[in-house]
């Protein structure tokens, strides 16, 4: 369970990225976060794994308080929270397998991992994670030789290899074309349904949010302006979130 209580985030330059947000996300939920760029979507996700510090209020993940957590506690928390990035953040020169194995870093012996000696069960886990996203045949190929969609699936596999309780996906499809966007979203949805991993996704496109999401969180200028079922979203609510009417630009495909 993730719980924000009156949480605020202020960046060093004084910019208020998140203001007084209170929010509870239950285990196994599939939540889509929308808003204009700069509305605080990324900040919300990054506050959960402590990448940006919450300066006021509290943020609690599975019973661990993020605010004021010690470095070791923070690492333990992060090992339970997988993150997927817009730019994939893979090590291009390493093989897919090594990239996925990075998800096991918090779990394996420090010394063995230094020399690249991974326990057999961790390798097995990494291969299963790759099977999940359907690219196990690429396991020993360098990440740089994969297409964008394949790279993002490696990113998902890396998060899966952590055996996480929560997955945070920060604009996972913003760098992908429509077809691969749907594949990646389907993968994420299926992982959420099969494994019951709580999933938070930042999305830019409304139709993708409608198609895959259950619960929608709308942010505007750092404030929570909508939290509810995605099917209840109408033009009025949309205007609240975006401050304007829907345009084709907000859709992935002109359906």
């Amino acid at each position: 369970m993730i719980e924000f209580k009156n949480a605020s985030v202020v960046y060093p330059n004084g910019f208020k990225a998140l203001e007084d947000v209170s929010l509870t996300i239950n285990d196994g939920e599939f939540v889509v976060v929308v808003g204009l760029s700069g509305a605080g979507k990324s900040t919300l996700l990054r506050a959960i794994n402590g990448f940006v510090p919450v300066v006021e209020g509290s943020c609690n993940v599975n019973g661990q308080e993020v605010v004021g957590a010690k470095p070791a506690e923070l690492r333990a928390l992060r090992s339970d929270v997988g993150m997927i990035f817009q730019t994939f953040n893979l090590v291009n020169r390493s093989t897919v397998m090594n990239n996925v194995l990075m998800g096991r870093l918090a779990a394996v012996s420090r010394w063995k991992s230094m020399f690249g000696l991974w326990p057999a069960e961790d390798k097995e886990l990494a291969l299963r994670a790759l099977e999940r996203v359907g690219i196990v045949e690429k396991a020993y190929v360098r990440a740089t030789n994969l297409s964008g969609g394949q790279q993002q699936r490696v990113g998902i596999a890396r998060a899966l290899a952590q055996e996480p309780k929560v997955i945070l996906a920060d604009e996972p499809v913003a760098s992908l074309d429509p077809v691969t966007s749907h594949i990646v979203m389907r993968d994420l949805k299926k992982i959420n349904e099969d494994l019951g991993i709580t999933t938070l996704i930042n999305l830019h496109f409304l139709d993708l949010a409608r198609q895959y999401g259950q619960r929608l969180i709308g942010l505007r200028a750092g404030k929570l302006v909508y939290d509810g079922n995605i099917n209840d979203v109408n033009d009025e609510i949309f205007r609240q979130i975006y401050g304007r009417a829907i345009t084709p630009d907000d859709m992935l495909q002109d359906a």
Partner: protein
Amino acid sequence: MTVPDLAPDAVGDTERPIEPDWPKRLRWILMLVIGLPFVWGILGLELSWGAIGRAPGQIWGLLGGLLPPDWSEIAESFNKLLESIYVAWIASIIGAFFSFPLGFMAATNMAPNWMTGPVRALLSGIRAFPELVLAIVLIPAFGLGPFTGVLAIGIHSIGTLGKLTSEVIEGVDPGPIEAIKATGGTRFQAMRFGVVPQAMPNILAYWLYRFEINIRASAVLGMIGAGGIGAEIVGRLRFRDDWPKAGAALILTIVVVLIIDAISAGIRRRIIAGHPGTGPVSRTLGTIVGDITPPVAEIQEA
């Protein structure tokens, strides 16, 4: 030639911008900034037209003394050349070994400011000493010989490699580092799995490049008595009768150094590209032995 009338109506009506005169002035300033020191330098060089006039003849005479080379004692020269190469190799290893952690400590994206500042100062301090000067300073304690040569070249290499390493590290993509931190990895793990795989090819290439340079440096150090091919050539230049042997040693050095450079450059290209290269060496090998076998990935896909 008359200027063709491109815009008959506009001439005279529009206000044209005045051509700025700063480029002209800059040109003059530059000429002065470069020219004055040049003149100052030339005047102190004790030039005499006589010497310059004689120079081509002297060089010709010198070459005539060196050529045709006498290959009779080339085996000995070759051993000396090997000695220089060994010194260069060990010095490069010392440089690589110590510059690696220093490079991380000097990179602004890896280490805190209180650490990068002093480490950078240390590195540029080391670089300020030419290898030869370092060697001279080390002589009172370590004497003349390969040991001093290795230390002098090795220490200088730490300075240059440390700087280059830190620049490579500063240029890596921060994404993977963030990803590793997000999985709960430590700072050290982020370096090992996020930074090293990205930076290592370039760092390795610099190590090899430094080895190429160190061979030359080690040859030069021989001239002040640290052994190796430098001492060999200087020694043979002492007596006119030995000049053809010096010529042979010189030609040998040039050829071997060029071969090592070519091989090293081929490997460097390959390391950076991450696959068999298309450089001259790989290409030549390719034409000799047929197709270059594709990398692992393609075989597995087939």
